[in-house]
């Protein structure tokens, strides 16, 4: 094995052997224990954490927290274990500042999953009596996640003293969970715990009850079963609603991807195969913005999307205008040929991005307000999906306003409906064409910013959405924005309801077949325009 590591191993073993030899007297030697973490192997670390927890001394909590967070380091120069926060070193026990971390040769003490669990449990026990209610709350939650016998007494003690209602509730739940998961608690206690768990443990209640069911005596089992049955009925309803939400969320992604195409293809009649690449460019704009922020002003990271949105719109709109002036304008009235030219454009744009940014995924992070999830009654909703749904609605509404309430929108509709008449009426049709294509491309760029939050940012990003986008626009009815909205949501929800039964692959195939069949019934999509004008 490698020399440095083996040396450390030997030292660690020696240290541990000494510690064990010294017996209980040494067990209370907190600084020594913490110091021994520096040289310990993963397995030994587990033992040390256990010992530290057994001290019951809240003084070890900062060191354990630092260990869990990855803030505990060994200074290779003197072998001393230190906590590093904001680039300064602190003593793990006394919290005294030691000095700046920048020039020290530090190596992190790394832990694995099972250790991370142990540490969390240990911290829970140590901080349950903290003065800070939010610390107590997280301690109670951590105890709920890691039930153990020692916790029971601690919880009883803490409950007696607790005044804060929220924390109290969390502690009661943790208590009930612990009672249920331990083997040697009395049946009466357990029976009392069942409704508490069913009521308060949220989505995990069924899990906890199920695992308790395995070892439960008959008398208790009936109680648990009826509690589970009640919960499952409730859950089935929520599961259906959850599915609707998933569908709406997928639909909003489809809507975002397709809505720019609804302009360039639906309104202008350009079969814009480069639409996906506009989305991709929007996503890359986000990457560049985040990259600049990361390098120069990390504190602005949460605003990166707000900065990226207008930039992405501008950049893709300008590229769109350039494309329209350079290529598309020669092709009006030859819709199918725009397919060939824009396909060529999409190849060029992809390869350009590949040459500039490389072929690999680029890192685009979620700002903190788009990370994680929240529970809305029985629904688990992730923040990024939530904001994307909101964003899609906002973009759609804004587009409706632009098309129906502004003079540019009026001119756009005029030009696309009767180019010659519009031009005769003094509308500068080339300008309007360029603006319309720019608007469609700009919206694709906005979609790119949103999609960068859930998908890869790679040169292939656009390819993944182009077919779906065309399906949505055609399904909804070319030339009708409301059709695009309804089309996207219908396909999204239908897909999500098929997926659990048919699987993701077969579900998608079924959707495609349904679209083909649907077009037979309504050859011009869901919201077809009627009348004589359409036929010519």
């Amino acid at each position: 094995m490698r020399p440095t590591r083996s040396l450390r191993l030997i030292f660690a073993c020696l240290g541990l052997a000494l510690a064990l030899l010294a017996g209980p007297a040494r067990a209370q030697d907190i600084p020594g224990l913490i110091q021994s973490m520096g040289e310990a192997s993963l397995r030994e670390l587990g033992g040390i954490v256990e010992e530290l927890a057994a001290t019951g001394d809240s003084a070890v909590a900062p060191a354990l927290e630092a260990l869990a967070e990855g803030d505990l380091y060994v200074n290779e120069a003197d072998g001393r274990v230190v906590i590093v926060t904001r680039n300064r070193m602190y003593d793990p026990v006394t919290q005294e500042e030691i000095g700046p971390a920048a020039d020290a040769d530090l190596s992190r003490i790394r832990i694995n999953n099972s250790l991370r669990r142990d540490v969390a449990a240990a911290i829970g026990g140590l901080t349950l009596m903290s003065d800070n209610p939010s610390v107590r709350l997280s301690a109670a939650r951590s105890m709920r996640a890691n039930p153990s016998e020692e916790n029971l007494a601690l919880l009883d003690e803490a409950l007696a003293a607790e005044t804060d209602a929220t924390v109290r509730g969390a502690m009661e739940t943790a208590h009930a969970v612990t009672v249920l998961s331990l083997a040697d608690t009395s049946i009466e206690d357990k029976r009392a715990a069942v409704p508490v768990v069913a009521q308060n443990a949220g989505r995990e209640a069924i899990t906890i009850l199920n695992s308790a069911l395995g070892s439960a005596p008959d008398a208790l089992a009936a109680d648990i079963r009826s509690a589970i049955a009640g919960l499952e009925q409730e859950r089935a309803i929520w599961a259906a609603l959850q599915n609707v939400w998933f569908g709406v969320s997928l639909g909003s992604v489809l809507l975002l991807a397709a809505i720019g195409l609804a302009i360039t293809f639906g309104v202008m009649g350009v079969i814009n195969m480069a639409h996906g690449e506009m989305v991709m460019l929007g996503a890359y704009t986000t990457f560049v913005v985040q990259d600049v922020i990361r390098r120069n002003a990390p504190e602005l990271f949460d605003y990166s999307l707000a900065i990226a949105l207008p930039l992405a719109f501008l950049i893709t709109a300008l590229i769109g205008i350039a494309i329209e002036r350079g290529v598309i304008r020669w092709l009006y009235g030859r819709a199918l040929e725009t397919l060939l030219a824009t396909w060529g454009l999409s190849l060029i744009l992809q390869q350009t991005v590949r040459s500039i940014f490389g072929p690999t995924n680029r890192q685009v992070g979620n700002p903190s307000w788009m990370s994680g999830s929240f529970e809305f009654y029985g629904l688990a909703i992730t923040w990024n999906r939530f904001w994307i749904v909101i964003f899609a609605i906002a973009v759609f509404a804004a587009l409706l306003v632009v098309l129906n309430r502004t003079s540019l929108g009026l001119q756009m509709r005029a030009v696309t409906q009767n180019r010659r008449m519009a031009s005769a009426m003094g509308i500068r049709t080339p300008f309007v064409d360029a603006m319309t294509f720019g608007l469609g491309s700009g919206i694709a760029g906005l979609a790119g910013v949103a999609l960068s939050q859930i998908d890869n940012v790679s040169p292939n990003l656009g390819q993944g959405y182009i077919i779906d986008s065309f399906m949505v626009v055609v399904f909804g009815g070319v030339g009708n924005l409301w059709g695009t909205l309804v089309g996207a949501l219908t396909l999204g929800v239908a897909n999500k309801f098929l997926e659990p039964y048919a699987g993701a692959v077969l579900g998608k195939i079924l959707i495609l077949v349904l679209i083909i069949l649907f077009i037979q019934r309504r050859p011009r999509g869901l919201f077809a325009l009627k009348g004589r004008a359409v036929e010519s």
Partner: protein
Amino acid sequence: MNKAQDTMLYLDGVSVAFDGFKALNNLSIIVRPAEMLAIIGPNGAGKTTMMDIITGKTRPDAGDVYFDGRTDLTRLDEAAIANLGIGRKFQKPTVFESQTVWDNLEMALKKPRGIFRTLFYSASGEDIARIEDILDTVRLADRRDDLAADLSHGQKQWLEIGMLLAQDPKLLLVDEPVAGMTDAETVETARLLKEIAETRSVVVVEHDMSFVRDLATRVVCLAEGSVLAEGTLDQVSANPIVIERYLGR
């Protein structure tokens, strides 16, 4: 059914609406065998929609449409109706521009329309004679090998009339046949249509009043999807409602 007896075309109470707009409103028209009917009326009166309904392009919301006294046209599609013997000339001359005058006529010629019959078709001497005959009639004999796109507007009108003749229909629907023609051509067209009407039924839609006068036939004036007045041209153009709604003061 009985009412339709002895008629070539029978429309009774036909109505159709597009998105709430009533294009035809309880329209009733009868055309007898070997009779010519001229239809006049302002824009939006429903002339083209009426033709669309007769030829199967549009389905009426209500009303009966019978051909030859017995065939319900509302149940058939365009091709079936065309094969029954109803020919249509469009308002805007619609010929196959990328094909020659000869090919245009050959395609229109009354022959079996089946896929394989068409695939293995080769023109018999009789067919060739018939096409040459029509070419003479429509005065395009010297342009037989030119592309239809290269014809002038009036010549395209003639070609389309020639195609109508080649189809050998029992009923001809002719939409503005003389738009873009010189005065001499207009007179010639009127003469030709009258000749055709000796053996077949003809419905002509036209704005050109002198042309309608030349036809010297029964006239129907449409407005807002129903019949406004009916009779000879003089009778119709003397009708005060027609003057107000169509001819103007």
